[in-house]
């Protein structure tokens, strides 16, 4: 059992507040990603959980027990860093066995657990290789295996995949997730890559400038971003965030997109969001895969725009649009054909539109 509770956790380095009054509850066996750009406080948070950094204020509890006086080496925490710390003078087998040996695990059991881990990480045919001869991809597998083999109750990973090539990263994502499902550890995973966080985590804590922005399942964070920062950070291409003016009132609204025209609000969910708008300055949000490209003159509510760029990226075609200064991207399927300069209407998807307060960036009228 290993749940983690962070209560009003704060870390200051001189004048800089790296982490500001962070409250976070990580359940036993949960896979939580700390996600954000560099400088958001994610690594500092993890270092405090590990016991490498001491909090300036606040508490860290493992299963309700205060960790303040427990040093790092007694927290039963496994650690994997971006730069795999491997004993390069030892073989793969010796590296995997190391953590068990120092814990005095009987020899027969060490051999058995090393063999099982090697199989799990698909390192069987490398088991007697000196690690100096391994590829970067294999080294990171050894690093993860070496930490996982001691079966720590809490497993902390700091950008473990960011040095790997793209294809292997996709493979390791799956394997890491599977590993966690098998071992049922509590995992805390630090990353700046939203795809990694989405694909791996049970819940994602999105951080910016030391402050928790949102905490929820990948789908919650993606579908219901709490503010403009989260909306923009999740997804690739990111959510379209289009400044507009809210006109009308008393349950009858329109969104004024300037040169892009005006869109009457008929969709019930969007109407509720309009109800919550305190003043007329709002930011309209819609995911690139949710907007529809229609001919101009289409009767649905939408934004009139010009095609400025077409990017064919594998299974998808990203169509870039401009309505005056306002820019949008729409994701279409493979081999979608459209001319540069074509006039189109980006039709708003019912039930999938967002509105944010233009000043605070907060989502309006969240369901």
């Amino acid at each position, binding site marked *: 059992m290993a749940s983690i509770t962070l209560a009003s956790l704060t870390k200051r380095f001189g004048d800089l507040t790296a982490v500001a009054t962070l409250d976070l509850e990580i359940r036993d066996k949960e896979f939580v990603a700390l996600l954000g*750009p560099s400088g958001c406080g994610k690594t500092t948070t993890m270092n405090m959980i590990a016991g490498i950094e001491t909090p300036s204020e606040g508490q860290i509890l493992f299963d309700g027990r205060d960790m303040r006086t427990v040093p790092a080496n007694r927290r039963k925490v496994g650690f994997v860093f971006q730069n795999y710390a491997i004993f390069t003078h030892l073989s793969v087998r010796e590296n995997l066995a190391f953590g068990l040996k120092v814990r005095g695990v009987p020899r027969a059991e060490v051999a058995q657990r090393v063999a099982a881990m090697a199989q799990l990480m698909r390192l069987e045919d490398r088991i007697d290789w000196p690690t100096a001869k391994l590829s970067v991809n294999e080294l990171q597998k050894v690093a993860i295996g070496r930490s996982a083999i001691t079966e720590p109750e809490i497993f902390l990973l700091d950008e473990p995949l960011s040095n790997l*090539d*793209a*294809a292997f990263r*996709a*493979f390791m*994502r*799956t394997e890491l*997730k*599977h590993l966690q*499902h098998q071992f049922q550890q509590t995992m805390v995973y630090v990353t700046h*890559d939203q*795809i990694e966080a*989405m*694909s*791996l985590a049970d819940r994602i804590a999105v951080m910016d400038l030391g402050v928790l922005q949102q905490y929820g399942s*990948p*789908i919650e964070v*993606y*579908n219901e971003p709490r503010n403009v920062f989260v909306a923009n950070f*999740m*997804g*690739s*291409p*990111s959510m379209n965030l289009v400044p507009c003016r809210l006109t009308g009132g008393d349950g009858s609204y329109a969104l004024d997109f300037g040169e892009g025209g005006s869109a009457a609000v008929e969709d019930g969910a969007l109407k509720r969001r309009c109800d919550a708008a305190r003043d007329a300055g709002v930011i309209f949000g819609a*995911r*690139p*895969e949710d907007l529809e490209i229609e001919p101009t003159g289409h009767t649905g509510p939408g934004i009139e725009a010009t095609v*400025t*760029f077409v*990017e*064919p*990226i*594998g*299974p998808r075609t*990203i169509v*870039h649009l401009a309505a005056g200064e306002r820019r949008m991207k729409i*994701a279409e399927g*493979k*081999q979608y054909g459209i001319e540069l300069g074509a006039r189109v209407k980006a039709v708003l998807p019912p039930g999938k539109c967002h509105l944010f307060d233009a000043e605070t960036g907060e989502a309006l009228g969240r369901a």
Partner: protein
Amino acid sequence: MAQLELRNTSKSYGKTVAVKDIDLVVEDNEFFCIFGPPSSGKTTILRLLLGLVAPDEGEIIIGDAPVVDQGPKERNLAMVFQNLALFPHMTAGQNLAFPLVERKLEKAAIKARVVEVAETLHITPLLDKMPAHLSGGERQRVAIGRALVRDPAAFLMDEPIAALDARLREEMRVELKRLQRELHHTIVYVTHDQEEAMSIADRIAVMEEGEIRQVGTPAEIYNLPNSRYVAELIGAPPMNFVDGTLGNGGRFEGRNVPFSITLEGAEWEGPAALAVRPEDLGIGAAGVNGEVEAAIYEVEPLGAFTIVDVSVGEQILKVQAPGQPQFTLGERVSLAVDPDRCHLFHGETGELVRSAR
């Protein structure tokens, strides 16, 4: 702007072959990407074009003129590197003007040209700032501007945006493409990022160990890779490969994997790898021909789509399903495999045996 050509060009450094028998024509006004893993010879091609190294064999032609005997200055090509070397003690404007000052142009002419280039790049407000006060993206624009002011015969770019963060890279590649289109530049662009190459290029050359494996439009390279090597490098999540044997009548049987399918038009017999893109596999729906039994291994929800990892015997295949479908781990499903979306590669050489339709 000018057409660039390498004819049968080779270059070795001691015993290391950097590039071998390169035949390449970059058309006038073309955005041409050289794509490949590290050390595959991409940068050597740029260095040969630029005149920083001389070829051991072969010809290099810029416009209509052979240039092997010319130095870098005479070739009039502009280079943009990943590590944009701006002069830290000069303003953005002075940096932009530098190549013209060096060429001893008149002051008025320099000023007019700098203003013009700054407007094209949308960096007019930055001209009086020092590089230290510019963001990464702004500095990169200035660096590109400095290459632009000279009006070169062509631009050579070596991973020019690789050091920027993901969002900025997305913005900059759109910007570069716009510039190229508006100004009718010939650009040779080196990258190891397949998404960048797909997004930006008119055509892509895929390199392997100093040789060109395939040249084509992004769609050709993606849809009709000519070898397993190219198929593996292009696309994210990566293509699925099932190793096996192609038998009589186009019957493919996976080796140690319960995966069989009949592929019409596959005349050849022998060891083969079947390849299919994650978005060309379906889950649960009835297969056109050849349903494969599978179980849900892991589910990766990415918002716009979901990567579903399924196990077929001992092998894991990736399926990219649209939207946000729900699955239970371990759930038995059937995999719909459309034979027309499958490629076959030779099991030993990796050469294409039968392409998708």
